[in-house]
């Protein structure tokens, strides 16, 4: 299965600033996803990153707050914009190579907003 490298692994940011998280997959994958995992909770899907087109956002998440890029089949970025302490969370990248392949996750980015 695909191996995902995600960076940074953690960061502490000032409120009002933005952070861009990078996700690199070691092979071409059909689909890439971004999740948020708040402390002690489960994973919530933010959006599906579409190669060459705008991301598909889940209810409660908007492009202005979480702009996503996916320039090719192995790379995606998630930006957390105009951060507030409520954005403190773990952000996880996931990839799916297609039928008969699993859904793989990166190690996550632990974000603290102060």
């Amino acid at each position, binding site marked *: *299965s695909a191996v*995902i490298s*995600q960076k940074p692994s953690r960061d502490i940011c000032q409120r009002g600033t933005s952070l861009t998280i990078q996700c690199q997959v070691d092979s071409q994958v059909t*689909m890439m*996803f971004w999740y948020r995992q708040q402390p002690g*909770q*489960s*994973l*919530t*899907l933010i959006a*599906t990153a579409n190669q060459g087109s705008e991301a598909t956002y889940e*209810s409660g998440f908007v492009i202005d707050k979480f702009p996503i890029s996916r320039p090719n089949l192995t790379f995606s970025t998630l930006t957390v914009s105009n951060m507030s302490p409520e954005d403190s969370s773990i952000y*996880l990248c*996931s990839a*799916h190579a297609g039928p008969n392949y*699993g*859904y*793989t*996750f*990166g*190690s*996550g980015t*632990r974000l603290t907003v102060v």
Partner: protein
Amino acid sequence: GESVGLHLPTLSVQEGDNSIINCAYSNSASDYFIWYKQESGKGPQFIIDIRSNMDKRQGQRVTVLLNKTVKHLSLQIAATQPGDSAVYFCAGLNSGYSTLTFGKGTMLLVSP
């Protein structure tokens, strides 16, 4: 949309015991399920999966059971070891949509 939830938030067992983690799902259109293990500071790791045309699947020390009638699945871990201590999530998929929905998670604590 679908919701997937768990019955027990924390499960404490002794080393060597068998562990059973349960999960309920709401969307009868879900046709693929995955169990993940998440250790502290890491992303979810695949354990085992099952498709809706099966009711049981076995891996190494793990078994997943699926009961479509009551929309329930479980993860059984045999001879639980301290290294099994982690949070376990079930996730469901309607293959027509290709996005996973995660349950709340159960923390498994294994005492030596």
